């Protein structure tokens, strides 16, 4: 038995003391913990609660339905159609390989798709759906849906995708949509969060692009609670977005489809404009392309074929290409001279077939010359020498000013891509761009719409409409936005031209198509109410050398296609009370009178009759041919009633 020594008693007290010290330290530390907790939970509570909410609440966008696009009669040009996808949720599928094998017995799934799906499954969270097949047919979807019980994890999903039911008919005007690219994002300062959605579809060209913001609509949003892995646990609230605005165009789908069918295989374009309010009724460029291919993602081969085609299907020839207007420009020269008072309509110029100025020889298209030519004859028979003479008299300033007044050399504000300004040259322009002084020969060339002058078919249609009405019509493509008329009516003030001068020009144009000696007499309309006034144009795309001239100019038919002349024709009708103006350009079509005028005449009649004209409107010797042509074209035209907008 141990004795309790004073020493050990001392140490025992030390134990008690130290035990209490330990306890005290522990309580002290506990108090510190409590203070820390108070700091976190009471002092900083608001801040941390905010952080907790940021953790758990995710804002998801609800993409709005894109606005639809209709023609003036409610035919759908661009719509959203449900597109079906087949997706797989890996965690529900269990054995992914087995499920995919079963699926491939039901619908066609390529090896490529399977490999891509598996790769994607590896990358993504197991509860997120992975798309196996895109754009599957309704049949396939229903087959999958019926067999759903044996296909765990497979889910058919529906989304909206853009569709153009008339395919290539409005490709150039309406354009197409495509997934937003990083370049789109760089070039735009649009803060719309929708653009951040991967593969969100935005307008790429045409009206789809120009009216992108209106068509897109406003995104809705839903707030969802997510867990740490990003799985959505529940929806907290949602705010629906606003669907994009529906656009109604001034275009008439039936006229447009007639135009396209009538242009046929040519590389050509036509613009039909309403002379009363400037509305564009048809704006067709041939050949065209199917915008649906671009929406789906065009294959490299298909794109290559479009790009390498020498008829340039991708080009929107009506607005983006500027051609030498050729003789269709002669009205401008004539009006400029009349307005400047340098000639009177009855004054004659002798045409020997050529014209010499400052040592250069300019030829008339008619080698033998037209003899004595007055204004009416000069337009009717398209005498070049008459205009060479006028050009010297009137000067380039007056000529350019008149061209601009008539809407040439001006970039008309219509919502299509790459609308060209064309070119109406001036002394300053030549000095700045060609680094050369303007010479009188340039004026001579310009007087017959050659040389530097160039204009788009749209500008020619505007010019013709302005001559027909004497008013400053501007083209208009959008009729209404969500049912509300688009913008104020375009200004239609008088151009301030002398009405008598205009009347001379119109009369001469009337004679082009209705006088036996007129260049387009073969393309006349014999229905009195719808008489047409027009002007042919044949614009050279090559220089004719002196040597060639001496041997006899090679006829267009003997030249390779891409060196033949462009054929042009502009007209307005009816002559007494103009309602429409038409411009037709057939690239490398040869003579305007034979290649462009018949097309313009048919289209003019089609527009005036709002459908196939009676054969009685045609000269009797053409009727059999026209009847056959009408039938052929009817076969090419789509049934528009099938895709008319359903009205409540």
């Amino acid at each position, binding site marked *: *038995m*141990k004795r309790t*020594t004073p*020493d*050990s008693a001392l*140490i*025992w007290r*030390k*134990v*008690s003391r*130290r*035990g*209490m010290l*330990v*306890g005290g330290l*522990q*309580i002290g*530390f*506990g108090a510190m*913990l*409590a203070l*820390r*907790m*108070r700091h*976190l*939970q*009471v002092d*900083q*509570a608001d*801040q*941390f*609660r905010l*952080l*907790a*909410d940021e*953790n*758990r609440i995710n804002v998801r966008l609800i993409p709005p339905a894109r606005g639809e696009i209709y023609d003036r009669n409610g035919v759908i040009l661009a719509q959203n159609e449900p597109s079906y996808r087949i997706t797989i949720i890996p965690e529900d599928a269990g054995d992914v390989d087995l499920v995919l094998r079963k699926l491939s017995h039901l619908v066609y799934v390529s090896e490529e798709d399977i490999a891509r799906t598996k790769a994607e499954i590896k990358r993504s969270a197991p509860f997120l759906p992975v798309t196996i097949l895109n754009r599957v047919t309704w049949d396939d979807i229903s087959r999958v849906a019926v067999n759903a019980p044996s296909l765990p994890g497979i889910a058919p999903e529906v989304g909206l995708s853009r569709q153009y039911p008339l395919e290539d008919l409005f490709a150039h005007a309406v354009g197409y949509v495509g997934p937003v690219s990083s370049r789109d994002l760089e070039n735009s300062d649009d803060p719309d969060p929708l653009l951040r959605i991967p593969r969100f579809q935005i307008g790429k060209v045409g009206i789809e692009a120009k009216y992108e913001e209106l068509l897109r609509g406003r995104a809705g949003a839903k707030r969802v*609670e*997510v*867990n*740490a*892995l990003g799985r959505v*646990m529940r929806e907290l609230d949602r705010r629906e977005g606003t669907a994009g605005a529906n656009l109604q165009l001034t275009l008439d789908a039936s006229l447009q489809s007639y135009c396209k069918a009538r242009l046929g295989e040519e590389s050509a374009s036509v613009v039909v404009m309403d002379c009363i309010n400037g509305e564009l009724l048809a704006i067709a460029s041939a050949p065209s392309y199917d915008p649906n291919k671009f929406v789906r993602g065009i294959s490299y081969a298909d794109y290559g074929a479009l790009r390498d085609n020498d008829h340039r299907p991708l080009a929107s020839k009506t607005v983006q290409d500027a051609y030498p207007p050729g003789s269709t420009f002669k009205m401008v020269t004539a009006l400029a001279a009349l307005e400047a008072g340098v000639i009177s309509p009855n004054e004659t110029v002798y045409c020997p077939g050529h014209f010499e100025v400052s040592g250069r020889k300019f030829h008339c298209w008619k080698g033998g010359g037209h003899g004595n030519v007055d204004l009416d004859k000069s337009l009717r028979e398209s005498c070049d020498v008459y205009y060479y003479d006028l050009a010297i008299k009137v000067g380039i300033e007056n000529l350019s000013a008149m061209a601009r007044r008539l809407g040439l050399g001006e970039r008309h504000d219509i919502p299509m891509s790459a609308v060209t300004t064309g070119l109406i040259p001036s002394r300053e322009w030549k000095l700045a761009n060609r680094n050369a002084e303007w010479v009188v020969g340039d004026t001579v060339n310009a007087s017959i719409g050659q040389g530097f002058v160039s204009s788009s078919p749209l500008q020619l249609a505007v010019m013709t409409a302005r001559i027909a009405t004497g008013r400053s019509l501007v083209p208009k493509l959008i009729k209404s936005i969500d049912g509300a008329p688009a913008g104020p009516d375009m200004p239609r003030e008088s151009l301030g031209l002398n009405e008598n001068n205009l009347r001379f020009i119109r009369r001469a144009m009337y004679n082009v198509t209705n006088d036996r000696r007129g260049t387009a007499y073969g393309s006349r309309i014999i229905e009195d109410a719808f008489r047409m006034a027009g002007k042919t144009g044949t614009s050279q795309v090559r220089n004719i050398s002196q040597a060639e001239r001496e041997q006899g100019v090679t006829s267009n038919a003997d030249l390779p296609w891409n060196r033949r002349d462009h054929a042009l024709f502009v007209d307005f009708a009816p002559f007494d009370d103009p309602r429409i103006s038409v411009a037709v350009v057939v690239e490398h079509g040869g003579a305007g009178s034979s290649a462009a005028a018949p097309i313009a005449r048919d289209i003019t009649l089609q527009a005036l009759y709002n459908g196939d004209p009676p054969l009685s409107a045609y000269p009797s010797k053409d009727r059999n041919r026209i009847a056959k042509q009408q039938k052929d074209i009817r076969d090419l035209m789509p049934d528009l009633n099938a895709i008319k907008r359903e009205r409540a």
Partner: protein
Amino acid sequence: MSYLEYRVKAVPTGFRKVLYLHWGLILLLIAAASVGFIMLYSVAGGSLSPWADPQIKRFIVGMIGMFVVAMVPIWFWRNISAVAYLIALCLLAVVEFFGTTGMGAQRWIDLGFMRLQPSEVAKITTVMVLAAYYDWLPPEKVSRPFWVLIPLVLIMIPVAMVLQQPDLGTSLLLLAAGGTVMFVAGLHWAYFASVIVAGVGGIFAVFQSRGTEWQLIKDYQFRRIDTFLDPASDPLGAGYHITQSKIALGSGGWTGRGFMQGTQSRLNFLPEKHTDFIFTTLAEEFGFIGGMSLLAIYLLIVIFCIASALRHKDRYSTLLTIGIAMTFFLFFAVNMSMVMGMAPVVGVPLPLVSYGGSAMLVLLGAFGLVQSAHVHRPRGTIK
């Protein structure tokens, strides 16, 4: 005072012992464990499975074990202290060679019905053997260098083995608990002063070793220290735990977001929400008041133990009780510091609350020892 010196008649015997149990302590243990059950039910999304139900069963088993241990006289436990210590070392050796690897460390022996974590056992047995050592050592020799070396070796062997697993947190806890026993046993201040100096030097050495061939701790441990010092530096990586944990705590406010309404834990933003980070869920759902209540229960348990220890008449009981109180204290102090961003994430569970079998069973066994010391305290005079 050896057990032979007890006046056996002054010690409760038979079923009377039950009356002398520290019932206040038992109630507190049940209270703490109940908090655990509620939280485990909550983090499971309002379900007894998979955590609350086994936890309750284990707690019942543990309580029975505690009673059994408490009924056995404390002198028996003192006499087998050395054996228990050796067994624990053997278990540590076994886990070194045959253990199940979890979270990059060998920590468990899979017994089938439960995973035994020998380091938990070692914590208690080290305290036991130290208490027995100082009970045996004449008090005047306590501060003599040779007699200081022996307990140091007794501590360092299990510390080294646990460090080998590697489990830095537990080895530090072992060191601290052992040191506390030595401190309370009356070791001279100078030793502790030198240990502190050495400790600072050691920490310096550890950081100096970073990136060298003789690197003293693992890379992940360095990273944990880095993120502890600056959690914002890596908010989605290693700092994620601390950042999310602080968000959960902070968003609780005074009264919390309500039972089962904690978004941080329910939506899995919290890591280890049923084990090491369960306190954050408690604080998120029951707020400052809830967290403080648990802290108060814990501190009361420690205070009860120390009060009991100071009334013991033998050094074994005193030192053992204080050592166990310290072990328990270190558990919750380190865990809470960790989730509040005051300590690195070291993987120490919240005692009695965190889901986990062996930690709770061992702790309840240790409280059995505390109870045994309490029950078998001589009441009356010593002859």
